[in-house]
């Protein structure tokens, strides 16, 4: 293939044959417009590596309205407005709206300074309040019920003069679920953009002072040791130790199936009951950890699918039996972190630079707990509950015959779900069957078919004219898009997958590509794990693998941090590693350069 001079324009993207009707899945405000040809767009493979099911577009729509509100309107970032997103052939492309007029930048900066300064000055107490607000949101979404639509209302509704029947709550409660999801995202970005900003200034400073320093080394100076994202894995280790202590460890064998183990435990008397009770405690909230990053409904949590924890448990049980599980060497990790930081500090030429280094590193460590832990509250705990709740509405729709199965709800846009609920509400009230049962099933079948077709499309990494300079700190900060990255996109090496160098070292081995967490039991010792997302829920399998490669993630992602602690090479944020690498391929993972080469 001869390489064109640049990227195609949005208007030049042809519909994928067999999926020409993809637009029917997405709202009008996600379509490319003629004027969009003048701007530079890049494929957000980091968050959206697969074609979007109709409902899941909410994970673009809602975050982008929250992020933009935060940067453009709330904190008034001087150089950045918000982010626009478009969907073509099922893939999400985005562009940032910069502020270019110097007078306008100055006007915005006057607002930004005091607002952002306030958050930094009161960071810790604001973060405490933030956690309370998030827990309240989680409690609220957990409390929302899906009406059961009885044959007739209980008598108390009348005697208590409630006056409102259950079908009303179909839509009200669904709207509340959506509203809470939006609120969660506003809180998600509330402190995050500023937190990332602290990282970016420190990364930039380090790269200026030490041009050869790797992102992962900077990350090691910043990383907190005691963050809650380690908790799910820690809970598993605790459960493994308890199994040995209670003498029920024989049930946890390689390849064991969660449901079988659980039922066997019920016949193991007090010991079995005690273990099950401990499991129950651990599950809420720690098993709400998602197998993904919360951007797709099928990224299930441990609670939704116990395969991941029960794949990891046998290994931990074996370790516990053989003299105990080695806890994370936190003191050693802290000592390493300090040694590295002081090593670089000493190499700085002037005391003024050292003082700047201290300020920036201090700021990073101040924001680190939020930046790392918000994911558990937002992308994992809340989002797991959110998708569960939507699925519960799907169950009601399936019972009503509007859709064939509960999961089909995710092939409807939320406005279409709203329509379907109106239909069910009307039908229940009228005493007639809902009309959606002949409307939605063929639409859903067609969408499922199209998504399969679209999954084989290789989206261009970017669209539109390449900007002369691309140094928007927000874009660099969130997506790692730099001029160098764009140059690499324009000259791809067919045998090399390029991502973020997340953990140092070079390893050759056999790739195991897992698209879904349910396939995890096929993983063999010493294989190289290639997955869409290396979410924290994958951490337990790190003990088995030689290296980790993912489509999504950055140097500060939890997976990168865990890989560094295991001392194993990792390349994350590759975009299309799961597509270009096949199980059984011999690959070389270079965690220093951020490349994966397919050898044979």
């Amino acid at each position, binding site marked *: 293939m001869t390489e064109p001079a640049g990227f195609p324009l949005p208007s030049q993207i042809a519909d994928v044959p067999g999926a020409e009707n993809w637009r029917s899945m997405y709202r009008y405000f996600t379509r490319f417009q003629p004027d969009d040809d003048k701007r530079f767009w890049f494929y957000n493979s980091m968050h959206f590596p697969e074609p979007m099911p109709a409902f899941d577009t909410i994970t673009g729509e809602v975050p982008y309205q929250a992020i933009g509100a935060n940067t453009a309107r709330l904190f008034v*970032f*001087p*150089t*950045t407005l918000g982010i626009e997103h478009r969907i073509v052939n099922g893939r999400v492309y985005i562009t940032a709206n*910069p502020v*270019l007029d*110097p007078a306008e*930048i100055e006007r915005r*900066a006057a607002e*930004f*300074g005091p607002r*952002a*300064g306030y958050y*930094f*000055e009161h960071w810790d107490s604001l973060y405490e309040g933030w956690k309370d607000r998030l827990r309240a949101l989680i409690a609220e979404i957990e409390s929302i019920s899906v009406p059961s639509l009885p044959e007739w209302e209980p008598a108390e509704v009348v005697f208590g003069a409630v006056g409102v029947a259950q079908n009303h709550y179909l839509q009200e409660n669904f709207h509340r679920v959506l509203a809470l999801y939006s609120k969660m995202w506003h809180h998600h970005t509330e402190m995050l953009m*500023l937190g990332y*900003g*602290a990282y*970016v*200034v420190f990364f*930039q*400073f*380090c790269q*200026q*002072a*030490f*041009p*050869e*320093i*790797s992102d992962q*080394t900077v990350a*090691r100076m910043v990383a907190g040791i005691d963050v809650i994202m380690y908790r799910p894995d820690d809970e598993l280790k605790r459960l493994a130790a308890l199994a040995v202590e209670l003498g029920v460890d024989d049930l946890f064998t390689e390849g064991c199936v969660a449901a079988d183990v659980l039922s066997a435990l019920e016949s193991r008397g007090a010991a079995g009951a005690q273990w099950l009770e401990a499991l129950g405690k651990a599950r809420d909230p720690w098993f709400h950890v998602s197998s993904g990053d919360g951007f797709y409904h099928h990224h299930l949590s441990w609670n939704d699918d116990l395969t991941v924890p029960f794949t990891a448990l046998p290994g931990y049980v074996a370790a516990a039996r053989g003299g105990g599980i080695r806890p994370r060497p936190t003191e050693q990790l802290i000592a390493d972190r300090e*040694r*590295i930081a002081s*090593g*670089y500090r000493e*190499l*700085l*030429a*002037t005391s*003024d*630079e050292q*003082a*700047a*280094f*201290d*300020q*920036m590193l*201090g*700021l990073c460590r101040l924001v680190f707990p939020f930046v790392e832990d918000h994911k558990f509250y937002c992308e994992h705990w809340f989002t797991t509950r959110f998708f569960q709740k939507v699925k519960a509405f799907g169950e009601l729709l399936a019972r009503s015959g509007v859709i064939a199965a509960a999961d089909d709800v995710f092939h409807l846009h939320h406005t279409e779900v709203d329509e379907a609920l109106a239909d069910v509400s009307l039908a229940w009230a009228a005493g007639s069957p809902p009309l959606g049962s002949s409307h939605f099933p063929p639409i859903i079948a067609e969408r499922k078919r199209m998504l399969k077709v679209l999954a084989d499309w290789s989206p261009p990494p970017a669209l539109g004219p390449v900007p002369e*300079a691309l*140094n*928007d*700190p*927000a874009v660099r900060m969130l997506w790692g898009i730099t001029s160098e990255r764009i140059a690499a996109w324009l000259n791809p090496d067919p045998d090399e997958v390029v991502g973020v160098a997340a953990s*140092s070292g*070079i390893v050759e081995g056999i790739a195991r590509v897992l698209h879904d967490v349910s396939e995890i039991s096929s993983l063999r010792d010493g294989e190289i794990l290639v997955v869409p997302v290396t979410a924290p829920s994958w951490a337990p399998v790190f003990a088995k693998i030689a290296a980790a490669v993912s489509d999504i993630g950055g140097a500060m992602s939890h997976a990168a941090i865990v890989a560094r602690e295991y001392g194993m090479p990792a390349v994350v944020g590759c975009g299309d590693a799961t597509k270009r690498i096949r199980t059984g391929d011999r690959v070389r993972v270079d965690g*220093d*350069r951020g490349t994966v080469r397919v050898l044979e």
Partner: protein
Amino acid sequence: MTGPASPPSGPGSGSGSGREFAVSLIDARDPAVVGGKGASLGELTRAGVAVPPGFVVAVAAFTEAMTALDPDGALRAEVEALPSDDLDAIATVTARVRALITEAPLPDSVASAIAHAYVELGTGGGAEDILVLVNTEVAVRSSATVEDSAAASFAGLQDTYLGVVGLPSVHDHVCRCWASLYNDESVAYRRRLRLPEAGVSMAVVVQRMVAPRAAGVMFTRSPVTGDRSVVAIEATWGLGSALVSGDVTPDAFIVSKVTGEITTRRVASKIKIHRYRSNGPGVTVEDMPTSLRDVASLTDGEIRALAAIARQVEAHYGAPQDIEWALLDGGGSVDADADIAAAAAAERIVLLQSRPETVWAARERTPAGAAKPRPADHVLSLFGKPL
């Protein structure tokens, strides 16, 4: 070929009438006496860094020889009178001077001092096996007294003779180094700058020959970016001259001084290898055996050991260094433990030269940043910067 042994100790070496003409490396201090390279190797030796044992034929020996050759200075006055733009005249006169220097017998005092030091080098200072001495292979290198790099390069700093065996050959190659001061280019350069010929002098370093398995250079800062937090190593199989001359693209490794991690490993396709022949003219350039061509010339343990030595040398001088090194053959056992592997590799490393890094040292450096009234101001200014 023997590995690096402890250098001949000072007292007792080169004793006798000619002591001032041959200085053992451990006593080589003053560049005016032993030249820049000699002084640098002496300092490395005293710092406890392994360098091939050897001695320096001091500037005084050159002076003695030139006095014998040109007692009234007429010859050098003739050179000094050459017009800088008359290259034909320069070529004619300097050819005559070089021939005189290389063909005239050495003054007895100089010849015997060199002989004495050479014997000691061969026997390690003892007198047990006098036959060994005639077979001691040495490298003979010029050691300029002028440290200005441009002048130094014209003054024949590059002159290096490898695999020199036997006393007559050592004498001969010392003279060749001296004669290199009268290369056409060196003289033309001095004439352009109107430097007095009386100030021209040179020392010569004679070191036991090493036949490296791999060799190269290393910098205690990145030569590309100037980063002081890394050691940058370039390496190839065989002699390092293949790398210096540009006959091969070397393997390149970058090691973080802070984390000890090898952050870059670039294994090049090394198409040529330099080897030396005993008393041969220079090095031979051969095709790299295919079994070695695309193989990394250093193991991780060797890379780490080199980086550790580089840091030790940098700490000794208190400034970034540009170092030439060689790695001797040694079993090549692969040890799983990184620290043990590095320690074993360190035993097989010798340094051939260390000099201050000059390129980045001379550059203006923009500070990476400065403290601000409040830490958050760093973030505020980041987002306040126009695109």
